């Protein structure tokens, strides 16, 4: 073959290989793993609910974006049945999520991974569950891991993530392992030696953010089996001296369940950057002072309650009945009996029956008084005026 033909051979062979690679990449892109799950789910829906419902099954990558938590979870790309009724007993990934939990933690506000762990951005099972992949330290806390660590309740591990938000709860409904561990912390007096959440002793290390400690920062030299932070804590809780020969931490005789619960608890102690509305029991608000509360109560239940109920107090104070207007747009009504006469040359009864000016507008559009209410208003206002006169009388001699 001469060199010209050799060049052509190279050109053709490379072109063929490039074409094959292109074909492979396009094919690979067109048949994603989640595509199979989506068509399976569609079939399942068609079987149970008919073709019409099957058409409602979404296609393509699904995503729950929760900007407050900085998460974009694509789990629902495969876990399509999460918010469908009727798949409570369907095989995964199509099972319906338990409603009780979703009612309190709506998917739109929480996403998936904040509770379950895993890599939310991923769109293939291996990367998403991340139980065996490198470079993702937050695997799905599900049955696979529970099996590895011989945790009897196969769903228990995800309680670690419950405790991210529920850290300061004494007891969290449904998080029995974490609750048990919190009891143990109280019973065994861990705080005698360890500082936890800012309280406790200095003998042992501060455990407040121990969950953030890198797995590489544990000493595994005396440990057999898998080298993980969780396994280290399990072994350490069962026999502290076996892990750290110089430790003064006593052996509390913990069994497997105790060690598991405590390991889950300490690994949940991480620094979080949660928006305040995600932390149970924390209310941020404008809290009224005791004086403000007392005044409010007095206005609502005292002699002048009528003027609060009918919203007169928005513009008018009734000083002698203890009603203080926040705005004081109109005159003090304690003086009304005399004031109306002076201003309009009419009696109070007459004026309220046929008001003029601003009051004509207010009493025809915003405040409607029945004849009985009008009578009550007049008698209250007269009483208020009497009180005012008496107050002035008693006040004068003092001067």
């Amino acid at each position, binding site marked *: 073959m001469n060199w*010209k033909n050799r*060049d*052509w051979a*190279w*050109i053709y062979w*490379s*072109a063929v*290989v*490039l074409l094959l*690679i*292109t074909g*492979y*990449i396009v094919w690979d*892109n067109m048949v994603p793993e989640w595509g199979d799950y989506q068509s399976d789910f569609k079939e399942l829906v068609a079987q149970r609910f008919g073709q019409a419902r099957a058409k409602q099954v979404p296609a393509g*990558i699904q995503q729950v974006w929760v900007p407050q938590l*900085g998460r*974009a979870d*694509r789990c629902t790309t495969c876990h399509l049945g999460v918010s469908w009724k009727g798949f409570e007993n369907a095989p995964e990934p199509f099972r319906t999520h338990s409603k009780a939990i979703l009612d309190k933690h709506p998917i739109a506000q929480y996403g998936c991974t904040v509770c379950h762990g895993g890599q939310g*951005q*991923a*769109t*293939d099972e291996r*990367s998403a569950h991340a*139980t065996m992949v*490198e*470079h*993702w*330290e*937050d*695997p799905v*806390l599900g049955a696979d*891991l529970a099996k*590895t660590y011989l945790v009897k309740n196969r769903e228990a591990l995800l309680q670690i993530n419950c405790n991210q938000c529920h850290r300061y709860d004494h007891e969290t409904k449904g998080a029995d392992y974490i609750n048990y561990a919190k009891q143990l912390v109280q019973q065994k007096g861990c705080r005698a030696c360890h500082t936890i959440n800012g309280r406790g002793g200095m003998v042992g290390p501060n455990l407040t953010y121990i969950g953030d400690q*890198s*797995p*590489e920062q*544990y000493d*595994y030299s005396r440990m057999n089996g898998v*080298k*993980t*932070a*969780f396994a280290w804590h399990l072994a350490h809780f069962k026999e502290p001296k076996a892990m750290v020969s110089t430790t003064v931490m006593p052996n509390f005789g913990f069994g497997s369940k105790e060690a598991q619960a405590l390991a889950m608890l300490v*690994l949940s102690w991480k620094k979080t950057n949660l928006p305040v509305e995600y932390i149970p029991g924390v209310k941020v608000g404008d809290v009224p002072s005791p004086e403000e509360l007392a005044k409010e109560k007095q206005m609502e239940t005292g002699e002048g309650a009528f003027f609060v109920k009918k919203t007169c107090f928005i513009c008018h104070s009734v000083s002698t009945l203890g009603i203080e207007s926040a705005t004081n747009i109109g005159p003090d009504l304690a003086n009304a009996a005399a004031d109306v006469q002076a201003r309009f040359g009419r009696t109070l009864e007459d004026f309220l029956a046929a008001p003029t000016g601003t009051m004509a507008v207010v009493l025809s559009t915003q405040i409607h008084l029945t004849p009985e209410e009008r009578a009550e208003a007049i008698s209250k206002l007269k009483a208020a005026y009497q009180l005012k006169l008496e107050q002035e009388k008693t006040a004068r001699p003092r001067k």
Partner: protein
Amino acid sequence: MEVKKSKWDRLMWTWKPASEREAGDSVVRNLLLHWFPAKVTKDSLSFRYSFWLGTVSALLFGILAVTGVVLMFLYVPSVERAYPSVKDLEFTVSFGGFIRAVHRISAHLMVAVVFLHLVRVFWTGAYKNGTASNQNRPFNWILGLALLLITFLLSFTGYLLPWDQLAYWAITVGTNIASAAPLVGDKIRFLFLGGNEIGQNTLLRFYVLHCFFLPLLVLFLFSWHMWRVRKDGGLACVDKLALKQKSEKAAPVKSKTYSLLGITRGSTVHVETALVAQDEHTVPSSPNLTRRLLAVMLITMTVVALLAVFIGAPLEEAANPLVTPNPAKAPWYFLWLQELVTDTTIHIGGLTINGALLGGMLVPGLLVLLLGAWPYLDKSSANSVGVWFAKERRRQNLIFLVVVIFILIFTIIGTFLRGPYWKFYWPWQGWPEVPRRF
């Protein structure tokens, strides 16, 4: 001359040369071909002389530019968004993972190929002037050296962008070595990082350098490099041929000479090397050079695409300044320096003499200076221009070989044989298991 064109020809060619003469014209008439000579020696085309390494470097740069622009549409250069945007590229963007892998592989290959190009030029003495006038190959060698250094910088700045642990700590190690430079080291580091530690400023600086400033510089220097190759009369093997023919004392041949756009003043290179322009040694560039260029282009793309499919680009955990991976390594092409730094760090009792100055600054600095000055120090005759391992240059080629082997061995040790705590591990010795959370 009017030639009857088939439909295929009309579709594929705006104008197809019908004779050798027209083929020569075509080179001048076409923007993409105008930097080629009309005729080219067979030696210049041969794989055995140049391995086409310069062309492959340029092609890789082209692949990097195209894939890089695609990535720029999808990547967000912010500390908060960079890592998730790369994850999105991997998981949701159609062909995103492949494009990223192509970019990554091409970048690694470009560093390697540009270096090999330099090695080839040294061993063939191609930085030397031949007998033709107006040659300045030593200067073109310096341009090439600058292009090699910029290639390192391009790769290094791109290394940080995914904002994962690999990126963060490689740049930490790399910039720490740089800070060992006396007097200005810390200031240079501060300037590059935009602060005392790697953060948003660093990311933005590296991004702008990587996507705009350095590629622009490469484009400019590459054009200059190519222009000089043409001004210097093509590859150095042409001078070898001319010299050989001069010694044969063949009669000068009248031949049409082609010059760039026909307006170059003075005698052209081809007049100087007129003896080479004979039919037995040269072929028209169109279609011989263009065809081989197409072949090289396709082979390069195929190799890159194959590697990208099988290797892919790594993405570790998100960058975490609080957790140092063990071992923390610089990018592979700097690992011979990191290795050198370790080996020249001496502990005497409690005293530690840091090797960063020697390994990180003096050795590479001296090497670059020496490389730049070498064409001016090399006093060998024109007989060793464009010749592989010329007898006259045997000693310097040997010394260069030793340096190359030293760099290779140290790179291999640093890349493959150094494990946690920078301890030495043979390939058959497993590294200790990296602990995980669960």
